[in-house]
């Protein structure tokens, strides 16, 4: 009995930590609709700052708690800087564009932290006065855990008071419900948003600072916490602080008991819980349908077929690409294969996001399934290259058909998170099922057939498949199916009134995007000769999102520009020291200069230069 009670307390202490980081994220999303990837970075910086302040003060109990609070406040100021300098300029940009900006911040903070605090983990002191354990039912319970169990609900209470007993809090809640109404009432939204961002960041900083008696401040803290924090926010219902608390308790306590029975479960448990919750309660435990949608976007311009001139330019570019290996070095051909694979992947994601209005945080799942299907066809069935490559799109389509059925029932960020859960569960299976998938040792020796083993020959294989895939999706975009998909995106109600089966249409769009991502995966597998679970990982999905958003979501050319720029810039910049800082800075520059992506930036540039008449767009 005592044992289980102690395990419960351990789970609750973890829940408090998780709640602190997640509630800030939830508040920020609720009001500003920003999916803030940098929240984990604020948490990490909070831990480092608290470490520095506490170890320099060495002032006992007072010094410790002063350090924790001071760290949280400094992180709040940091949040203010990020909001005012970067995010405030791009609130009007397409939904999720801010996500790319916050990802740029993540990269910058990673290198800045490395430069300031060094590479070694920093283990802070235990909390003075709470440094040992007490016995409860004979089991040792750390005093600091008990303190955390109290701090979580205290913070929850304080936020409740703030939101229900102050004018500012009421406005914040109102903005969570209906931003336009708050605007119409004459409230200065800019400062409301800033205030919320400061509060959210400070809470993340507090969460990080409170961790120093439990773990060493390390450079992995940001990314290792952000995934779980998102899961908590989504399970609770985005924007709901109480929901975040309940979700944090649910996940932490479940985990504490589950590892007694299945020691390997913690790798996917949060995502399995999230998937179940989203299937049963599509807006999270405490969320409402209203909290699913981001900023109302203006309906898109209708897609146009390329003008004859533009079509000729495109054809010339494709021809130039086809001739590239003849004049360029071998390595350039290899790099161009990477660019083409990334482009095809980005185009398939854009098909879902831009045309279908379904944002995916887990699109790598279908890319990875395609890569694994091709690799396994070689390894287990001994398929030659061409039939093995054909397995990629088939497997991608099959996986998307399965997961899409659940995902299209949701919309907005909830849909995005369910795709993430699907990807993480697939990743977990690939990672754990070593006998079948090779686990994280991957599958090796998936090289092109003898006839295609020359880098230039494989370039043409990739060229045919990738350009073919891109061309195919473009055709679909201009087909009745593609128009239907955009109709569903712009107004599901009208589309339904017209007699369209909305969910089915989205489901098929999802599947098609999965199939093409799977094709990209199989080209990828043979170009690298091996596949590893990383291909299904969050990083791969985020890279795809950045490519699409960087390129510009409102143009078919967007993902092509975005993927090309992403791969080439990363390849070039990663040669430099502190390249993450530079890369993050570049992302921010693009985001700030062209809030509608590179394609939008070029569009405005050509119009400003008078190369294109304004009425072309209308």
């Amino acid at each position, binding site marked *: 009995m005592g*044992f289980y009670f*102690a*395990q419960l307390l351990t*789970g609750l*202490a*973890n829940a408090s930590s998780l709640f602190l980081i997640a509630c800030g994220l939830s508040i920020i999303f609720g009001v500003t609709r920003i999916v803030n990837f940098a929240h984990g970075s604020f948490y990490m910086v909070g831990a480092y700052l608290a470490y520095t302040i506490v170890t320099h003060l060495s002032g006992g109990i007072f010094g410790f708690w002063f350090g924790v609070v001071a760290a949280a406040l400094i992180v709040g100021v940091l949040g203010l800087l990020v909001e005012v300098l970067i995010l405030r300029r791009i609130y009007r940009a397409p939904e999720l564009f801010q996500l790319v900006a916050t990802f740029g911040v993540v990269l910058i903070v990673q290198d800045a932290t*490395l430069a300031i605090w060094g*590479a*070694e*983990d920093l*283990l802070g002191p*235990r909390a003075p006065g709470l440094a040992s*354990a007490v016995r409860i039912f004979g089991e*040792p319970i*750390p005093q*600091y*855990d008990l303190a955390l169990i109290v701090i979580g609900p205290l913070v929850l209470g304080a936020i409740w008071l703030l939101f229900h007993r102050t004018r500012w809090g009421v406005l914040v809640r109102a903005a969570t419900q209906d931003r336009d109404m708050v605007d119409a009432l004459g409230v200065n939204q800019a400062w409301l948003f800033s205030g919320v961002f400061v509060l959210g960041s400070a809470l993340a900083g507090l969460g990080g600072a409170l961790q120093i*008696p*439990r*773990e060493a401040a*390390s*450079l*992995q*803290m940001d990314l290792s916490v952000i995934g*779980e924090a998102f899961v908590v926010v989504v399970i609770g219902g985005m924007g709901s602080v109480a929901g975040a608390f309940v979700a944090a308790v649910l996940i932490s306590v479940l985990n504490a008991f589950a*590892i007694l029975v299945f*020691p*390997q479960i*913690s*790798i996917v448990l949060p995502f399995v819980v999230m998937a179940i919750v989203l299937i049963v309660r599509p807006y999270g435990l405490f969320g409402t349908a209203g909290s699913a949608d981001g900023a109302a976007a203006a309906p898109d311009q209708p897609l146009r077929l390329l003008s004859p001139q533009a079509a000729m330019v495109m054809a010339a570019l494709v021809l130039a690409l086809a001739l*590239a290996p003849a*004049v*360029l*070095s071998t*390595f350039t051909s*290899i790099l161009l294969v990477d660019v083409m694979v990334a482009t095809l992947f980005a185009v398939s994601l854009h098909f879902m996001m831009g045309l279908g209005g379904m944002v995916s945080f887990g699109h790598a799942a279908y890319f990875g399934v395609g890569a694994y299907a091709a690799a396994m066809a070689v390894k287990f069935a001994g398929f030659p290259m061409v039939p093995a490559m054909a397995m990629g799109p088939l497997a991608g389509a099959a996986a998307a058909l399965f997961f899409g059925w659940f995902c299209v029932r949701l919309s907005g960020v909830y849909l995005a998170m369910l795709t993430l859960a699907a990807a993480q569960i697939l990743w977990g299976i690939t990672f754990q099922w*070593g006998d079948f998938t090779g*686990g*994280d*040792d*991957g599958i*090796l*020796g998936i090289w092109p057939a003898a006839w295609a083993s020359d880098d230039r020959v494989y370039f043409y294989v990739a060229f045919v498949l990738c350009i073919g895939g891109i061309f195919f999706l473009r055709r679909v975009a201009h087909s009745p199916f593609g128009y239907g998909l955009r109709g569903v995106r712009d107004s599901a109600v009208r589309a339904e009134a017209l007699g369209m089966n909305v969910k089915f249409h989205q489901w098929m769009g999802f599947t098609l995007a999965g199939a093409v991502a799977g094709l990209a995966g199989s080209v990828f597998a043979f170009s*690298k*000769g*091996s596949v*590893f679970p*990383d291909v299904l990982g969050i*990083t791969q999905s985020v890279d795809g999102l950045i490519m699409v958003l960087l390129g510009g979501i409102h143009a078919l050319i967007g993902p092509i520009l975005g993927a090309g720029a992403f791969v*080439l*810039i990363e*390849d*070039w*910049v*990663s*040669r430099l020291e502190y*390249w993450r800082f*530079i890369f993050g800075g*570049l992302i921010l*520059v693009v985001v700030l200069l062209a809030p509608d992506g590179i394609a939008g930036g070029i569009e405005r540039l050509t119009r400003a230069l008078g190369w294109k008449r304004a009425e072309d767009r209308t």
Partner: protein
Amino acid sequence: MKMMRRNLLGALAALPMLATLPGAVSAQDKIVIGEINSYTRLPAFTEPYKKGWELAVEQINKAGGVDGKQLEVISRDDTGDPATAIRIAEELTSKDGAVLLFGTFLSNIGLAVSDFAKQKQVLFLASEPLTDALVWSKGNKYTYRLRPSTHMQAAMLAEQAAKLGKKKWATVAPNYAYGKDAVKAFKEELTKLQPDVEFVGEQWPPVFKIDAGSTVRALEQMKPDAIYNVTFGGDLAKFVREGSLRLLFEDRAVVSLLSGEPEYFDPLGAEAPEGWIVTGYPAADIKTPEHEAFVKAYMERWGEMPKTGSIVGYNSILSIKAALEKAGSTDTDALLAAMSGLEVSSSPTGPFMYRAADHQSTMGAYVGKTTVADGKPKMVDWTYEDGADYLPSEAEAAKLRPAE
């Protein structure tokens, strides 16, 4: 901001140039070597590692290079991603004119580059990745490995563990290939030495995401006599702190892989556990002339004590120098012939050689006990265990490899 914009323009302007850059610059007076590692992903290990190989390269070049040619290492960051590592390997060999590759930390990247080496027929010296597969089940003609593998280090610990005579063991290891290999090898070796041993349970926290409190409690519930631990880095710090708070280590023996390595050991500070049996690197206490000379040079160059990574980086370059000298050429076939059975007669950690049968070096590891002295973690009662003693015979090892 202005700076950023200039960077962007520079970046964009440089893109077309990628295509026109000249191919291999094969100056007569230098030998280009390609190096790949996860610099941004794992700086705690890779920074000292880089300092180690840079020191060795500087020393060799100052002394006249190899056969009169200067060594030039082109070093790249794989960002922790195997696909990026492959692309870099392509560039290093096809464009930069690297005659061989070395480096890598993560086992999956080591395996990916090893497979690339086999495909493109270029020598790859895997400096750090510990997976047994690299030289055994997935070994190939083109790949050699420097560090003692997971199996070797687990066997060194199993030998010490058997002397404890504890019967009930629990294990805790990160949930990925390295952790699984390390547990499997330890179980096998300990069972061989102590047939009545019983493994009462295991914990598999996700790597770098350990829920230390719950994991410690789960281990406690198994009531083992002794614990075998494979966690490292931030996970280790959390595990040690939560474990000592919850009295997990009271009256229990702990055997812990890699925990004596300064990269993971030093951050524990005064809270470093007492009396754990570990593999590691007691840099300050190794009093051989070779090691003392190395520490002196390292301190002069970098102003800090070497870490495990420094040794790995330094010994990698010593191995490459020996191979180039023995081969007398930078031709891959000659290098492969040289690597087979290559002896490195003098290194900071003593002589070692690369076995012809499985391409594993016999470089060893230091095994000892942990303690805290003057508020700092320290390894005591340590011995250097020669890697050769913990490897299967060459005939057996050859059977573990796929036929070529």
